[in-house]
């Protein structure tokens, strides 16, 4: 999902680890001990985390774009203030995660550079367009809802800085989901045209949200290592099912329908069952062929370029002040 990275194979060179240290590390993970930045860790653990945490950070930052699209067109001052707050939170999430990632020994510049160069991925969900105001409701309710499902277990991740960042983030996500659901509820109880907007948003976001959890377990490439190392605690399918079970009743409460004729409740298992997910769409979007991939990257690169003079001005100003202070001290 936000960290679809776990479904990619580690492409780095294989490292032969000291068996004694490795055994001690495995024992710590098995005992649910936290690993902190300066502790010894296997190279594969470090690389997996750098990939996952940086992609998670990129997702938070790119995720501001689809919502940013509606700030100036929010229907009321209240909605606008809420939306701005939420987007600001996402920027904060990006920062917490980039910081956690840096404790693994990569620089901020390196990870941002990997995104700008198109080498790093971010969640597939943010490559879909936001076409009407109800999309702000659907994103909060469904996208942030799916993010919460994924992020709650990450609060217990073995890597301390990542787990701590996730705890902060989860506290803030709950507001995101509830404000989204409230938008949906207001529209669903509004005029027929407003209800139709809410339905349209649900129709478009439902399947992509189910894809956020990554490919089905049967074909997922994630290694058993990430489970053993307590980086990942539930499988893609398990998390997806939890999300479906939690979300379907919420959608029915809104008086909306799901874009899935096969959706049904299985009395025996007490789970909601969906029709088949179109994984070819997921692959296309991940490969860069989603509706907005190019636009998202173009805007991200442009933002980086537009901010260059501000960062430069800050550097020059800081140097000037430091020089002045040195001069005053000398007098």
């Amino acid at each position, binding site marked *: 999902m936000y960290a679809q990275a776990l479904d990619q194979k580690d492409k780095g060179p294989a490292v032969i680890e000291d068996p004694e240290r490795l055994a001690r590390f495995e024992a710590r993970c098995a005992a649910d001990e936290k690993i902190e930045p300066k502790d010894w860790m296997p190279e594969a653990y470090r690389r997996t985390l750098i990939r996952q945490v940086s992609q998670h950070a990129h997702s938070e930052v790119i995720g501001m774009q689809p919502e940013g699209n509606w700030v100036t067109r929010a229907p009321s001052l209240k909605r606008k203030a809420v939306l701005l707050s939420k987007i*600001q939170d996402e920027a904060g999430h990006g920062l917490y995660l980039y910081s956690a990632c840096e404790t693994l020994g990569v620089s901020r*510049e390196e990870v941002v550079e990997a995104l700008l160069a198109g080498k790093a991925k971010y969640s597939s969900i943010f490559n879909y367009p936001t076409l009407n105001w109800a999309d702000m409701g659907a994103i909060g309710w469904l996208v942030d809802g799916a993010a919460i499902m994924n992020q709650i277990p990450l609060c217990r991740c073995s890597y301390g800085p990542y787990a701590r960042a996730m705890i*902060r983030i989860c506290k803030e996500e709950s507001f995101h989901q509830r404000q989204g659901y409230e938008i949906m509820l207001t529209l669903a109880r509004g005029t027929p045209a407003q209800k139709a907007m809410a339905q349209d948003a649900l129709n478009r976001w439902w399947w992509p949200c189910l894809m956020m959890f990554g490919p089905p377990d049967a074909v997922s490439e994630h290694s058993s290592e990430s489970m053993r190392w307590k980086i990942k605690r539930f499988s893609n399918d398990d998390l997806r099912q939890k999300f479906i079970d939690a979300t379907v009743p919420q959608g029915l409460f809104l008086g909306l329908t799901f874009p899935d004729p096969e959706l049904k409740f299985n009395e025996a298992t007490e789970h909601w069952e969906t029709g088949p997910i179109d994984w070819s769409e997921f692959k296309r979007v991940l490969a860069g062929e989603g509706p907005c991939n190019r636009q998202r990257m173009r805007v991200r690169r442009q933002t980086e370029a537009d901010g260059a003079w501000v960062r430069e001005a800050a550097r020059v100003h800081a140097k000037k002040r430091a020089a002045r202070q040195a001069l005053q001290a000398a007098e």
Partner: protein
Amino acid sequence: MSEQSKTEEPMPLYEVFIRPKAGLSHKHVGSLHAIDDTMALHMARDVYTRRAEGVSIWVVRSNLIAASDPVDKDMLFEPTASKIYRHPTFYEVPEEVGHM
């Protein structure tokens, strides 16, 4: 853009500490990059206190923190495990004496 960010000088890393309310100690909450102390304080306020998380902020450049080495963990902290006589529960006080 990508070319520029490669040549840009990195900004120093700061650690951020927040006092949640008067009477409590400052606690480490995270880190950020800033060009100087003033900018670090502004950014810490924007990022780490959006929901009344604190009443006071400390920022300090990460490279100014001296830290113990995890390798020395046992040497530094293990000896206290055997010094149980440093805890009040080590001592028995007859019940008749009451709470002490």
